[in-house]
């Protein structure tokens, strides 16, 4: 069985589980909606202040939702005693990592798309022109987030205080990625071309490569025992 096929089976399984229960997606969607309310109340109706904080709020929304969603990556396996099955699966364990990563990326992208639409509606933004650039920035940032998140989710899945430890470990590591994405998003939302934030994009690209490679190389060690 090839690496790619094994990874694909993991994604397919998770999609099937999700399609049947819809528990993760529904909850995350509702959570994203609530975040919008909270942001509006926290920042207030002042249009100008809102415009300044918008990129930060958007990524805050992605991250908070992502923390909830990613943290649950391996909960299905843990709760149903399938962790052993993962462990004993023959061949390269990193195929499981890639599969889980792909599933998480899918989840994140769907949630992010919804959040962007909701932001556009609630905060009255004109996103039509900037959408392609925005997609690039969000894509790059999300890969880094999901890559580390999937790895850490596996590591924290059986710790007693999983819900606490997962964000505590993930957020500091994401700090530079967050800096880069917010700055890049800021520029993009102002209509500036992607070239003006090339350095941020390169940093995100580097982060993506580094984190995915480290994830692939170390996942075997996480899955043991």
């Amino acid at each position: 069985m090839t690496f790619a096929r094994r990874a694909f089976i993991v994604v397919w399984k998770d999609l099937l589980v999700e399609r049947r229960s819809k528990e993760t997606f529904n909850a995350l969607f509702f959570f994203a909606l609530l975040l919008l309310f909270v942001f509006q109340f926290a920042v207030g109706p002042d249009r100008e202040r809102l415009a300044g904080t918008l990129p930060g709020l958007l990524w805050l929304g992605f991250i908070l939702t992502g923390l909830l969603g990613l943290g649950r990556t391996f909960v299905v396996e843990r709760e149903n005693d399938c962790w052993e099955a993962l462990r004993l699966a023959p061949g390269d364990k990193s195929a499981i990592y890639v599969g889980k990563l792909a599933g998480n990326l899918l989840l994140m992208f769907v949630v992010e798309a919804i959040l962007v639409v909701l932001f556009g509606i609630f905060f009255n933004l004109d996103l039509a022109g900037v959408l392609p650039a925005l997609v690039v920035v969000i894509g790059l940032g999300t890969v880094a987030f999901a890559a580390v998140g999937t790895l850490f989710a596996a590591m924290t899945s059986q710790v007693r205080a999983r819900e606490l430890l997962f964000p505590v470990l993930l957020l500091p590591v994401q700090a530079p990625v967050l800096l880069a994405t917010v700055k890049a998003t800021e520029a993009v939302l102002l209509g500036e071309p992607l070239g003006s934030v090339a350095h941020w994009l390169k940093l995100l690209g580097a982060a993506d490569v580094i984190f995915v490679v480290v994830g692939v190389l170390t996942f075997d060690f996480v899955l043991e025992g």
Partner: protein
Amino acid sequence: MVRIVGGVTLVGLAAGLVMAFGVAPREVTQGNVQRIMYVHVPSVWVAYLAFAVVLVASIVYLARRVDGADRLAHASAEVGVLFTGLTIATGSIWGKPTWGTWWTWDARLTSVSILFVMYLGYLLLRGMIEDPDQGARYAAVLGIVAAFNIPLVHFSVYWWRTLHQPPSLMKPGPGTMPGVIVAALMVNFVAFSLLYVYFVAKRVNLLRREAEAAA
């Protein structure tokens, strides 16, 4: 053996103090407050040294499963967090009279703070996993991720603070330094490095003894 290192460390630290207060001159622009640098800068150096050791030890542990490597990583992370905290605290104390504020999101303080939280998380992870083998493996993975994150932190924070910012932000640490100040700094570098070695050695011994006692 460790005691000898301890003794030498003590001598080094004393020499460092003498250099910092007796030999080094009163700095021209900042006044005597600048002397805090002789603690602040060596501290941050030791922190980076410590985390580099964590990276190497983590890789060695995953590759070879040598318990000593795991203990070294653990000890080095702990000492690293200690010195990182010290860096932040002394940097803040230096900042108050210099910039007028206890805290500022300048490049160095921000980077070091992120480092601090990352490796604090490392220690937290170790504390929360009961199975020692699993704890060692997971900590090693985290140690590797954290280390690779350090250059990302540096670049992102530096760009965050300097691009589109007026260059009037003062950074801690003098620019071109007179030789005496450099000398004082070097002595303190060596002293603090010795202190790092001493602390890590003792901590590793302690970890080994505690593991043997538990076995």
